[in-house]
């Protein structure tokens, strides 16, 4: 169903466990092992960062919005779960994913605009790009995705929060950028969008002001706070479940219910903490899958660490090598 995530094709057909994802990718590589051995590629996260950076460049030139880019990245993810990357020209796939995502998100771009911008941007691998090639790749993309084109994104959750955990503009934009970043991980293939959004909110509250980059200590401490708070919320959820007082979807939680060793007591003077406490109570009183949030927190942290090792030049070269060698730029 279009608006109901739980009845959507995204939930029914495009959610996997980490193990399933690994197995699917392995079997794609096993189908044709020779090029896989001949053309090593960076790890999946680094490829995702590369895709993200590249489509952002394209988006800037055409003033394409973030939500289209989020959808385009989901298309790329789904496509490469079905098709081994070395059989494709990723630049063509990226351009096509953006073209299709813009249509689906009701901000269509003319195919000729995409073609001419993509050619200027990625001329080295897309010299021969024309509308027909892009149109053909669109068929390929849609077909591999079984025409499942509607993507549920976490952004919507940010604007529909109950008042007690409403975010400041600063926190909101931080949560927004965590969501942007999660598209460079496998998380959108693993967890539902509201879990991603809730985790992004938590991280925004504890990590303010900088999620990645400077202040590594702060960040580690913030994530530790987030993790311990989630574990406690989970325990509290479990206690209520066994005592039968769990109110599904309820958010009446007050800070009294929160265990005495809550982070609030550690740093009572920090105004940020009170929001963390309120959010913890909100979670403890909910039926949200906190395990999934813990998992998401860890993956996002791993991603930020992994981001530091990303080498754009190496990624680009490795892609170029097989694209040229296999004449995929023709």
């Amino acid at each position: 169903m279009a608006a109901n995530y739980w009845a959507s094709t995204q939930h029914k057909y495009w959610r996997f466990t980490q193990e399933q994802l690994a197995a699917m990718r392995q079997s794609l590589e096993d189908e044709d092992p020779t090029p896989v051995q001949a053309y090593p590629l960076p790890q999946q996260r680094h490829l995702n960062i590369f895709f993200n950076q590249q489509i952002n460049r394209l988006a800037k030139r055409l003033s394409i919005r973030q939500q289209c880019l989020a959808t385009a990245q989901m298309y790329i993810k789904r496509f490469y779960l079905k098709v081994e990357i070395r059989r494709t020209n990723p630049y063509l796939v990226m351009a096509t994913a953006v073209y299709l995502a813009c249509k689906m998100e009701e901000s269509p771009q003319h195919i000729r605009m995409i073609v001419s911008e993509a050619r200027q941007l990625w001329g080295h691998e897309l010299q021969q790009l024309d509308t027909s090639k892009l149109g053909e790749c669109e068929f390929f993309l849609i077909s591999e995705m079984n025409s499942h084109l509607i993507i549920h994104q976490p952004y919507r959750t940010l604007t529909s929060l109950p008042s007690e955990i409403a975010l400041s503009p600063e926190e909101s934009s931080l949560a927004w950028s965590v969501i942007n970043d999660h598209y460079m991980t496998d998380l959108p293939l693993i967890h539902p969008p509201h879990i991603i959004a809730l985790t992004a909110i938590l991280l925004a509250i504890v990590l303010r002001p900088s999620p990645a980059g400077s202040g590594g200590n702060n960040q580690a401490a913030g994530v530790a706070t987030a993790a311990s708070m989630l574990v406690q919320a989970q325990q509290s959820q479990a206690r209520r479940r066994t005592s039968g007082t769990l109110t599904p979807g309820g958010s009446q939680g007050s800070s009294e219910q929160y265990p005495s060793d809550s982070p609030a007591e550690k740093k009572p003077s920090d105004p940020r903490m009170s929001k963390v406490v309120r959010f913890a109570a909100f979670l403890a009183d909910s039926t949200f899958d906190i395990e999934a949030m813990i998992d998401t927190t860890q993956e996002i942290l791993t991603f930020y660490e992994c981001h530091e090792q990303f080498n754009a030049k190496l990624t680009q070269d490795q892609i170029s090598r097989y694209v040229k060698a296999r004449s995929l730029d023709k």
Partner: protein
Amino acid sequence: MNHNNFICGPGPMGYQSKVRVVDKYKVIGFISSGTYGRVYKAVGRQGQPGEFAIKKFKPDKEGEQSYVGISQSAIREMALCSELSHPNVIRLVETILEDKCIFMVFEYAEHDLLQIIHHHTQQPRHPIPPSTIKSIMFQLLNGCQYLHTNWVLHRDLKPANIMVTSAGEIKIGDLGLARLFWKPLHALFSGDKVVVTIWYRAPELLLGSKHYTPATDMWAVGCIFAELLSLRPIFKGEEAKMDNKKTVPFQRNQMQKIVDIMGLPTKDRWPLLPSMPDYTQLVTLQPPLGGQHHGHHYNHHRQALNTGHLEKWYYNTINQVSAGSGAAPPLASLGKEGYELLAGLLVYNPEKRLTAEQALQHPFFSTGPDKVSANCFEGLKTEYPHRRVSQDDNDIRTGSLPGTKRSGLPDDSLRPGKRLKE
């Protein structure tokens, strides 16, 4: 050909469908053509039960040898139909992308409301039985409620798009203009030109609003209800064509047809009326006939005439006696509840118009001698004629009879209000 089927054809990343439509389906005839392409009737070759309607989208240009990018309406229909699942919305079986064409395979429906209405206009003209009307309306509203609660606006509801299976189930079809209305990036009023076939177009759209809401669909449902009763479009206006400047003209004739029955809209009952872009055009319309005799007495009579004639229209319609029979008027049993439902749907102010959910709760469906059945044909002795299937063009892969060519209009611009020729 490469063993994987992925890499083949001219380019190294050439596309070829893994499923071929002719391997999987046997086309048994041609049903219709529209701006998008053609529809064929088919049966499964691989033991799939039932019959199918295969909608083939063609590239914009006839005989196009290369890919040109899929139209946004085809993308919408493919995407939305894959998500939707409801007994009163046509079911998409699968989508096959092959040879630069898109084949959407739907469950087959033997009838549609246009065809059923048309059948009843054949001599001797005879009304659709009230139990059938009730069932059709209930199922139609049920489908609308499903679409609206899932944030889907149909935007082109009309009898030709409402399918009916031989088991009497209503299936809302043709979601080519449908759109999601949760936080669209481009608000629903930008980009698109006005949609909805003109006879079913809501007054807020006629007055220049570019806001599509579920209420816009509900006006069309009201028009369809009226048409089921009288067997004629209730507001059968003539469409003013778009001029060369591509500005959408004020549809004066259509608005006049509405005013003739409904009276002029007033800002008492529709407070936002004066903020409609084409509000000033309203003074150029004639108030309904009946009462005033001279054009220049217009202002004098205007106030008194604003109540409109819908009630009169309704009772005239349902109290009509079949020609030559002395029996009681067949539709009389629909009673005052029928009028109330009709009047609740055909409300000028979109905010006051019944929602699908409210309409389903209407006493119309719980009172009167006719019970609502899930089969709109229940109790009928006659069977409706089957959909015409022509043998002129059975080749789904190459079929290119005239009439498939697009009119040159951009994707979302005005669709002509033409009806299917019988």
